[in-house]
């Protein structure tokens, strides 16, 4: 790790003041610290937002779910409120990394990082979530922009995510055997405005919605509707662990399983 100056922010405003130039926010640090250790990231300053109370916690009022950016994966996985409002999201959180990673890593950090193999971006997209920052509100659709890219401006801080609880939803993940991130992760959600299917781990430009699968499921929200579904391999990643063809195939398999789980 290169030299760095550490600051602990007392409030969002404080953090915004400190997060200037080559400074970076650190939330759970489960992505940033490892990247700094291998010298892939070299911020001049770290602004720790993990102890800001205003960024923490899960609220459910009616059908509206709001999760603070500094809420840990562990808290999302074990929340009683979410278990009722959107168990699929808790289930997703319970599959991120391992227990120690879940104790530190946060939803805000995950979506701000937008790793193409991360789990949360698929949920945000499929749930039609809104990303709330200290400056504005951004629809998930507009927030995730390719590999490790988001709509966030320099110094902009995610404060929460919010979404309407879906009628039905589920997440299925096929793990990379080594890293345990998603080779393919599919989040399906059936809500007031129809069916959304978001895919992570597979796209060569990051998380995306599968129109093929959405169309098939719009007619009939049933695994059987996907029996002959096909996803083109064109825009999918190929790496040592999975070819684009394999990923294309897995997307359909995971989608089928997710729909079955959502209906169960």
């Amino acid at each position, binding site marked *: *790790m*290169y030299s760095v100056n550490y600051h602990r922010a007392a409030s969002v405003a404080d953090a915004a003041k400190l997060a200037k130039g080559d400074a970076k926010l650190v939330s759970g640090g489960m992505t940033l610290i490892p990247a700094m250790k*291998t010298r892939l990231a070299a911020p001049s300053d770290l602004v720790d937002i993990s102890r800001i109370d205003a960024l923490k916690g899960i609220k459910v009022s009616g059908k509206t779910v709001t999760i603070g950016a500094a809420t840990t994966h562990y808290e999302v996985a074990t929340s009683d409120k979410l278990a009722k409002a959107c168990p699929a999201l808790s289930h997703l959180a319970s599959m991120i990394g391992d227990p120690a990673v879940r104790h530190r890593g946060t939803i805000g950090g995950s979506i701000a990082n937008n790793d193409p193999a991360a789990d949360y971006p698929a949920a945000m997209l499929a749930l039609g979530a809104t990303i709330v920052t200290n400056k504005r509100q951004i629809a998930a659709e507009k927030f995730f922009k390719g590999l490790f890219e988001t709509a966030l401006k320099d110094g902009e801080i995610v404060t929460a995510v919010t979404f309407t609880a879906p009628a039905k939803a589920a997440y299925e993940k*096929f793990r990379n*055997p*080594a*890293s345990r991130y998603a080779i393919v992760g599919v989040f399906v959600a059936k809500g007031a405005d129809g069916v959304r299917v978001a895919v992570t781990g597979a796209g060569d430009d990051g998380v995306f919605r599968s129109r093929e699968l959405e169309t098939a499921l719009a007619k009939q929200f049933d695994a059987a509707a996907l029996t002959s579904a096909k996803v083109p391999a064109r825009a999918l990643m190929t790496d*040592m*662990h*999975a*070819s684009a063809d*394999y990923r294309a*195939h*897995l997307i359909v*398999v995971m989608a089928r399983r997710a729909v079955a789980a959502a209906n169960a």
Partner: protein
Amino acid sequence: MGIEGVGARVSRKEDKRFITGAGRYVDDMVVPGMKHAMFVRSPHAHAQIKKIDVKAAQAMPGVIGVLTGKELKADGIGNLICGWMIHSKDGSPMKMGAWSPLAVDKVRYVGDAVVVVVADTKAQARDAAEAVEITYKELKAVTDASKAMDKGAPQIHPEAENNLIFDWDLGNADETAAAFKKAAHVVKMDVINNRLVPNAMEPRAALGHYDKAEDHYTCWTTSQNPHVARLVMSAFYNVAPENKLRVIAPDVGGGFGSKIYIYPEEIVCLWASKKTGVPVKWVADRTESFLTDAHGRDHHTHAEMAFDKDHKILGFKVETKANLGAYMSLFSSATPTYLYATLLSGQYDIPAIHANVKAIYTNTAPVDAYRGAGRPEAAYLIERMMEVSARQFGVSPAELRRKNFIKSFPHQTPVIMCYDAGDFATSLDTAMKGADYAGFEKRREKAKKAGKLRGMGFSCYIEACGIAPSAAVGSLGAGVGLWESAEVRVNAVGTIEVLTGSHSHGQGHETTFAQLVAQRLSVPLDSISIVHGDTDKVQMGMGTYGSRSGAVGMSAIVKALDKVEAKAKKIAAHLMEADEADIVIENGALKVAGTDKNVPWFQMALAAYTAHNLPGGMEPGLKETAFYDPANFTFPAGCYICEVEIDPDTGQTDIVQFVAADDFGNIINPMIVEGQVHGGVTQGIGQAILEGANYDASGQLLTASYMDYTMPRAGDVPSYKLSTSNTPSPSNPLGIKGCGEAGAIGAPPAVINAITDAIGTENLTMPATPQKVWAAIRSAKH
């Protein structure tokens, strides 16, 4: 004996310090004034070093020294060597290229050490290492052994034309050719044994300390054999004469072969300590370990087996290309030759065998022995061959094996080894029963209904352990003898220290060796201490690898105990005025058999040291040393059955049961033996479905961290069903065969045989990842 002696499930004496965080590993060592080293390593697989500029680095904060290979050479430090001479079939000696601890004019693999930086902190050393400027001229690289001998392939060492190190033969080519002429069936296959990274959880580390006043060096190092390290560093690398060099291997966090070898880093730390005047510590990052620990396996083999019309094996023909990487590591030449081809008879009566092995340089990390070393490669080949043959003949894989088993012992194979004992059919029966072989078809049907593919695979492995008879290995080219030493010291109060040349890095010697002593001398386990891993404390020894610590290391202890017991009985007889032949050792005392006359053990020990009343002419004290040189190898063998269930939609393999029936000879502590099998089998499953070192064509290691190299995790493996049925080894006084490597040797073919059974195609290489299994299923369908 009872609860603490041989055969008892004694929980381990060494555990206390490990479970409380009090273990002492090299990285835990602190020496006053200690500084930290960071190596600057080649980012290229093959390149000429044009220029090294260290000025900027030297000026960085905290930097004490920035040292290069030129300076190292100028100080007379020698090249690394391979200690086992192999001769090609034309009689010429192997072609060993030069390996300087710090590269001087050429780098040959990604990770090759070029410069070392010593600084106050590790972070500063790393900062400065980045400031070292090295100008390279990149050369074409080759990583695949099957291409390294092609025309136009880059030449890696001037000494080895076409990158061929040796072209070696074993067995009889003419007899084998004749056997194939008579054959009713010939089964052919091409097999790749995948390259693995050992991945002991403790990364390699070294701490070199030069004491100027004493002109003496101390090296703490993560070694499986500190004495060999000292010998080699002194005799070949000119670090220091043996009496001026102390090597300490304290607690070592796993080895699996990778910590046998002497690497550049410990040599450089010692030399750099003298050069800079400060103690120098280096601890590998995990990625450094991936790049520079000696890798394992990496064979490409074509094999053919000849059968008569009744499916009896007539002959076996094997051609192997072994990738040794960019340099010849310490025992790299022995692994694909005498540890491999000598086991090609497997458990079978094969009249004629011929093997040819070509060892080849490539621009990859050096390859050497990794858990099993050569024997997993042999077992995989034979056991895949047996299974595939059975499928081709439409007969039961178990019965094809049974028909060809060696049934009487001793059995001389056509490839040097003479098996001394075994009962292969019993292991097979035990495993089949344990796996409920009879119920398998029902389980397969049930799985099918659930949309899953179920398969079962066998592996009847044999290996050679307890390495090794010194004269025999000497005649085959070994640069060392493979005996072991022991010293048993009985203190004046009767407590005992056993100094052993074996080294424990997980094997539990502090417990098992003590059990042996407790049994023989009838003293409590707690009064026995095992001392190992320090060349200043322990007499010369050969270390731990090749499942040799029981069969060879403990046999040395037995010999020393024989001497201690004889002397103790003489003293006791003298004290009780009895006949020495009547003395028995029981319940902590030396007794006159059949009477109640006795001398407590501690009193006898005290008498030995007070020396007031010893038999005439007897020297005072009670301390004996022995060296044990084994008469033969030992031959652990067994049968493993693996059952898998595959999700055809994803290609995911679930190991639903794994049954091991082993023959390890006599067992000192079944709990520890089981632990060895669990670990070995898991590494074997890892090789079969998870692990594989993967270089791209330019020589970059793509699997250089746990993000890309799949380590077996708890969720990847099941709980195992183990049993043993043991035939004692006639080759050592304890009848021990060894158990450290069996799992890693026997498991891979069982797993792959099960998967190929499930998916109905043989077209599959290790590691059989979900993607590969899925693709194999698809290609079989189309």
